[in-house]
């Protein structure tokens, strides 16, 4: 369907792997494949897989057995003729196959070029193209699910009713301007004002899901803090279910910060274990303490670890004081040693959640996980658990909301309709921009600059 050249790229990550997939798209995809296979009679049935030997271009020695799938235009990802070659994942092998294809006349694909062609042929809309990138970059199952929903066109489908309601408001306002000779409902202004409020609320709540959306995409930064030897690293390991950090009986063993990502209810949580906070003359340990303070400042949430078997030390109080600058929860560790008395801590906790855990037995770690994501978790979802995960969409929704509110304000000040309508048309344009109907070309180019080759 495309008038121009045929592109090729490796669609799986570079490096050794079980299988490497090479994708060819364009009018010559099949012809190039025939030349590569040295089999001019190869006429594959579309969407079926064929096992074919791949030979060196010069010499004709068999290099690999490849699975070849042909997608006939327009029923392919790009809308063009596409051939996918699944080969064994040896980097030099894959490189030499791509080289052969380039030698035969294909062009190396630019970043995002396959997706661009899909967009150009109308196989995808803009939010769907963005969803492909999100899907590939997804770190957790929940992020995959969101991207998949967006890829399925859910965002565009969600925005359509908003655009429809905007139009429903615009149309009577316009007709009151255009058909002055007809009599119009007197209470139009009150009705419109009510509708605008509802609409602004809806847009706001959709935009509000971005907090959760960003969480799904970018994750949560959680820092474990506490005085030395309260068992932070044990909790860290318990959470990771991995023996990564060095845990010893000597106070101050953890001198650097250690970070690892875990999946908590779909949210990628970056947990950072820190050096115990205490005044020390040890140079290295001082450095560690400095990093700890920084990790505390950067965190979305701090888990203050206290030794529940010991009386509260002045250093514990210092840690709580530091943590109180941000959102924090308290983990009372070592509940296997003695019964906890949370009441003593409660007075100091300023209302923060207090959990009793044992890093040693693993008791209470599940509750700790749950408590970590609880303040951020998905109660801010839109109807049907739909959430916004893309900063560009968020920005446009905020603009939409502001434009609607500006119009509502003008209406309440009894401004003439043509002024009220300015904001409503802006709002409509912003919503259209999300799905790419009115996207300024530069935004498109920004979107494409974040694609990597082969997608």
């Amino acid at each position, binding site marked *: 369907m495309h008038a121009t050249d045929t592109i090729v790229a490796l669609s799986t990550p570079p490096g050794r792997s079980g299988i490497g997939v090479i994708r060819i798209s364009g009018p010559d995809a099949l012809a190039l494949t025939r030349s590569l296979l040295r089999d001019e009679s190869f006429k594959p049935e579309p969407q079926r897989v064929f096992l074919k030997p791949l030979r060196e271009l010069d010499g004709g020695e068999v290099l690999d057995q490849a699975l070849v799938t042909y997608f006939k235009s327009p029923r392919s990802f790009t809308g063009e003729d596409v051939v996918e070659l699944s080969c064994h994942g040896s980097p030099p092998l894959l490189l030499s196959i791509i080289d052969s294809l380039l030698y035969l006349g294909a062009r190396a694909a630019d970043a995002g070029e396959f997706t*661009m*062609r899909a*967009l150009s*042929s109308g196989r995808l809309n803009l939010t769907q193209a963005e969803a492909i990138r999100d899907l590939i970059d997804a770190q957790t199952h929940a992020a995959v699910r969101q991207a998949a929903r967006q890829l399925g066109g859910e965002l565009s489908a969600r925005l359509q009713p908003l655009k429809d309601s905007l139009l429903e408001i615009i149309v009577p306002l316009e007709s009151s301007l*255009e058909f*002055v000779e007809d009599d119009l409902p007197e209470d139009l202004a009150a009705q419109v004002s009510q509708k605008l409020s509802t609409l602004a609320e809806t847009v706001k709540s959709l935009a509000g899901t971005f907090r959760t959306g960003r969480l799904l995409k970018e994750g949560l930064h959680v820092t474990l803090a506490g005085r030395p030897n309260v068992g932070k690293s044990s909790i860290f390991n318990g959470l990771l279910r991995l023996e990564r950090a060095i845990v010893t009986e000597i106070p101050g063993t953890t001198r650097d910060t250690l970070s690892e990502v875990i999946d908590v209810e779909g949210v990628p949580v970056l947990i950072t274990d820190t050096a115990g906070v205490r005044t020390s003359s040890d140079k290295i340990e001082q450095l560690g303490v400095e990093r700890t303070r920084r990790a505390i400042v950067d965190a979305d949430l701090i888990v203050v670890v206290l030794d529940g078997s010991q009386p509260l030390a002045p250093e514990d109080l210092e840690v709580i004081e530091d943590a109180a600058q941000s959102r924090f929860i308290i983990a009372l560790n070592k509940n296997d040693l003695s019964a906890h008395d949370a009441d003593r801590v409660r007075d100091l906790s300023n209302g923060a959640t207090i959990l009793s855990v044992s890093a040693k037995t693993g008791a209470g770690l599940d509750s700790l996980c749950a408590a970590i994501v609880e303040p951020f978790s998905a109660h801010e979802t839109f109807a049907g658990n739909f959430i916004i995960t893309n900063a560009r969409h968020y920005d446009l929704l905020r603009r939409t909301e502001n434009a609607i509110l500006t119009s509502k304000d003008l209406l309440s000040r009894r401004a003439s309709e043509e002024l009220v309508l300015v904001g409503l048309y802006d709002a409509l*344009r912003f919503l259209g921009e999300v799905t790419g109907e009115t996207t300024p070309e530069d935004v498109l180019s920004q979107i494409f600059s974040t694609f990597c080759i082969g997608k």
Partner: protein
Amino acid sequence: MSFDEVFDVIVIGAGHAGCEAASASARIGTQTALVTLNLDMIGQMSCNPAVGGIAKGNLVREIDALGGIMGHVIDRTGIQFRLLNRSRGPAVQAPRAQADRALYRTEMRRTLEATPNLHLRQGLVIDFIIENGSVIGVELQDTRRLRADAVVVATGTFLNGLIHTGRRTYTAGRAGEPASIELAESLKHLGFPVGRLKTGTPPRLDGRTIDWDAFEPQPADERPVPFSFATETIEQPQITCFIGYTNEGVHDSIRSNINESPLYSGQIKGVGPRYCPSIEDKVVKFPDKSRHQLFLEPEGHDTYEVYLNGFSTSLPSELQQEIVHKIPGLEEAKIIRPGYAIEYDFVDPRGLTPFLQTTKIRGLFFAGQLNGTTGYEEAACQGFIAGVNAALSVQGREGFRLRREESYIGVLIDDLINHGVDEPYRMFTSRAEHRLSLRHDTSDTRLSPYGRELGLVGDSAWDRFNQRFDRIARLKIYLEETRLKRSDERYYELSNLLGRDLGDSVSLAQLSQYQNVDNELIFRLLPGKMRSNFTIGDIETTLADILYSGYIQSQRVNFERIYQHDKLEIPQSLKFSQISGLSREMVERLERSQPQSFGQARQIPGMTPAALFLLLYQLKHAQAA
């Protein structure tokens, strides 16, 4: 081939499009023939005897600013001037004037006859004479042949016109005049894609049989706003129109006779304008409305004929009479001309260039209802553009076009040639993205310099333009810099009037933005000497400029974000088929439209954002190289 007469430009049809076309073409300096079926019907208003209205009034003022004639003619013949939408912002206000129908015709003919290089000819054009893909003349029914290098076709509803009243149909251009059948055939033969549209008109009543007391009077404005920037006063005595309503009895009669209406019997195939519905349509489509508004508009000073605005119908004549009697106040009213519907041919305007020249045949221009529009104003502005370009093309000069962001005329032509029509196209303010800057009273600042360049704005009009421009600039500075302080005598009075504190000092410009402050109040605050140098119209324009400047500024930012690359030129050498990744379908669309700038490419229907991005990338790449 021999010709009876030789001209530079021939205009077919002397309606609102044809008159503007012929006048502009002749005044640019080309020998122009205006050929019409009947010289006594030049500038005839087939339907409502009124010019202007919301957005349409802007078109007329734009034509005037460019040096057209419609504004002058209506200002001399208008018998009821009203500025519409007075309660709303100045950007959506527009003048409307009811004309004395007969006077309008006379004045239009007088204006054309006084135009040098313009030759009126009566006759029916039946065919075009084409040579090597260019038009070289026309053939008349009486066998005369006229030679010209450019021909403007402005045939209105006459092309294959078919009138319907009840089940009866007959060919006609409008009531009492023949249709143009052969010319329609000739256009079809040339391969132009022809469609069918419909419009309608209401019955005319004998004013002596109307019970006027049953209606609510609607007087003319005390201070009429003229269309032409050259008009200082409206000389015609102003009349009063009257407002009335239909009732359920009328609706019931229409409903029970709906099968008699060719609109509902399936007899009419053409598409009518949704926004100018017949009374049958109103009753059927809005069953919940218990009444519909009607306007009784006297047709002139020297006639008793009254136009029943709002009651367009194609019901059988005897039924029209019966139903009209059910309207309160019209119990005794006699219909002197029945209403009717008319179907006519139009040509898909997507085959036109922005200069209104057909892409198929060089030298052939289309204007007016033929292009699928409705309305005298829509027709007139196309006539003006087509006439100007016909003359320019004969003189070998570059074509003249207007952009969307500078004029309603630009919006209209842009919409027509890019999107085509699926119902008669009427202008609305909402069609113009930039309507806040397209006020009727700024038509001169927007367009008169073009008119001057074309040679259509004479010396005195140009002087007047420059003086007004200068007055408004001075007034703006004065209003922004003159501040009322607490110590001023008037401060107390004003703050009392507005019921609020106005701060330590307030500029007149700021003051004008408060609710309840009207233009007259600001005018009274000017020193006596200024009041005699400036008109209230100057104040209105200046204050409206101030009111909208913030919005226009912020809109500009938004539009610039979206349209920032529109001015990038597409080089002639660029082959769309060689842009990498562009689908064949997109290449075809581009090749068909031959856009000269990125902005034009952006407006081609069906272009995908990604395809535009690829084009943009190519253009920027080429620019950098």
